[in-house]
């Protein structure tokens, strides 16, 4: 097994060795259930057999809670406790460390994302059958969510690589991902007030606006390239941030 995968495996397992994975998963499902069924415009109020709500709520929960919590410790904690020195002086490349940690954290987030598949399956297949499931938008919606998770975790990892404090990493990640999400709402307001240029800019960078297309069943290569570019760029900067220790 390559060092990258060994590090990823260790990272993924360590979430389950501590309470963090269980807390995150339980809280996320509780919050998702609340959002999906009850809160304004929820399933019971809407009275329509649609899971569009799932695609709106999940990435928001990921941005504001899951990704910051999962990524905050990745490198910051290792730096603080000194285990980074132990890890890097094993025969591994810096890129193995960055990629391994990235894959480990992404693994946990994807477990969470994919387990929301329970919603469409339970509602439209078994035990309930509320009608025929429109497979296309569900598939593209999940593709969007996976791409979004890749980008968000990469941003979280990058921020964790820049600081020694988990708390600082959490709040900055929370803020950055939150802003990238809310830019979508802002864009709507901006275009309503006639600032078309600003709205276009906000839509361009907003994760929410980008995901909108996927929910509607539209897989636009520009959106795919956008998420992948953010991922690669963040990982490269994280790699540089890790390498900086050599010269500072």
């Amino acid at each position: 097994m390559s060092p990258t995968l060994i590090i990823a495996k260790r990272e993924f397992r360590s979430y389950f060795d501590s309470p963090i994975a269980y807390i995150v998963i339980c809280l996320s499902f509780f919050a998702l259930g609340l959002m999906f069924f009850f809160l304004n415009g929820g399933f019971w109020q809407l009275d329509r057999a649609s899971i569009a709500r799932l695609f709106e709520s999940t990435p928001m929960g990921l941005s504001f809670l899951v990704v910051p919590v999962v990524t905050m410790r990745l490198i910051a904690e290792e730096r603080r406790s000194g285990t980074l020195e132990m890890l890097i002086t094993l025969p591994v490349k810096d890129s193995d460390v960055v990629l391994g940690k990235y894959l480990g954290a992404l693994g946990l987030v994807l477990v969470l994302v994919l387990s929301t598949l329970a919603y469409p399956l339970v509602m439209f297949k078994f035990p309930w059958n509320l009608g025929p499931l429109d497979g296309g938008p569900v598939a593209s919606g999940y593709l969007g969510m996976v791409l979004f998770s890749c980008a968000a975790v990469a941003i979280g990892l990058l921020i964790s690589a820049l600081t020694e404090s988990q708390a600082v990493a959490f709040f900055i990640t929370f803020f950055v991902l939150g802003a990238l999400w809310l830019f979508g709402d802002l864009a709507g307001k901006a275009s309503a007030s006639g600032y078309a240029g600003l709205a276009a800019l906000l839509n361009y960078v907003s994760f929410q606006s980008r995901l909108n297309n996927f929910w509607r069943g539209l897989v636009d290569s520009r959106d795919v390239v956008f998420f992948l570019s953010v991922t690669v760029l963040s990982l490269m900067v994280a790699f540089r941030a890790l390498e900086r220790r050599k010269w500072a």
Partner: protein
Amino acid sequence: MATDVMIQANGLTKRFGVVRALDKVNFEVKRGEVVGFLGPNGAGKSTTMRILTCFISPSTGSATVNSHDVFDNPLEVRRSIGYLPQRAPLYTDMTVWEYLKFAAEIRGLDESTFKKRLKKVVEVCGLAQSLGKDISTLSHGYRQRVGLGQALIHDPPILILDEPTSDLDPNEKAEVLRYIKEIGKDRTILLSTHNLAEVEEACARAIIVSKGRVVADGPLDEIRGKTGRVRYVVTIDEQRAEAGNKPPAAAQALEALQRLGGVKTVRELPTDEKAHKFELSGAQDSDIRAEIFRLMVAKGWTLLELRRDAQSLDVVFRDLTRGDEKLDRGANWSAADEAEEDADDKSSADEDDEDDDDESDDDDEDEEAVDAKSKGKS
């Protein structure tokens, strides 16, 4: 012969901002040598070790480990070494077995090799009882053992250990030192420590660094001889004396000893009410025990103990690294950077002189001089 040099440092310099942590450090460690790396806190020991393990890069200079360059070939360098960083930072959420397995997997050990090595490592580091325990529940001494275990798991030709015996109890220390001596027969070991007794126990050679420079490098005997002085310990009875003579007061005895020919310094050591104890230092090639005995006879004092030994390593260590201490205590160096550097150069030159011509330069005198200066200032 080049293959016999396992670790080589050429003019390693490391700057952290304006602070120069290492200044043109040169040394070599050959195959099978166990070398003690000594120096006060902040002298650059850990920095050097981090450069050798490719965790950080030097500002200038180069180093090779097992004939691999730390710049060009960091992975090969790391494959050749087992490294225990200071305070043994470990993943506390893993069990000991999981951790060792993790280190072995990354180092590419296959299952059967791992089992074989694990057995040996468990035996050496005394981990049999704790293999299944979470590292977070282990005491610091046991974590140190686990750290040592992961450094040994792949049976490396070179071991770099940063304070391997700190936080161990005396039994564990003895055990680790015994092991270091044992594996040092066919391996190269560079270990840093504050404990000079350990160096004397385990190492044949020491490198002493101070303020980022190597101030001594050689076999221990050579380093001990560096100050060119011998130590005498004299104990005189404080309550009784021979044949109607009065037992001496401390000041009286001190003065008499000071007046002996060949004595450089005399210092009173703390004792109980029954005796006065003094530490004298004299030139390496002379022996003044006879003079001391005759003085006792002439005065009619009762000599309880007279001992001559080579300067102990920690006295040498203190001598060689005194510059650091002086700076820390706010001795009278100029604040300007350039002036400070000049002063540094001068002080090291002074130290060399002192070594060469046995110029008497006592600690106490120095302190007095510093005191006088600071009084003059205030």
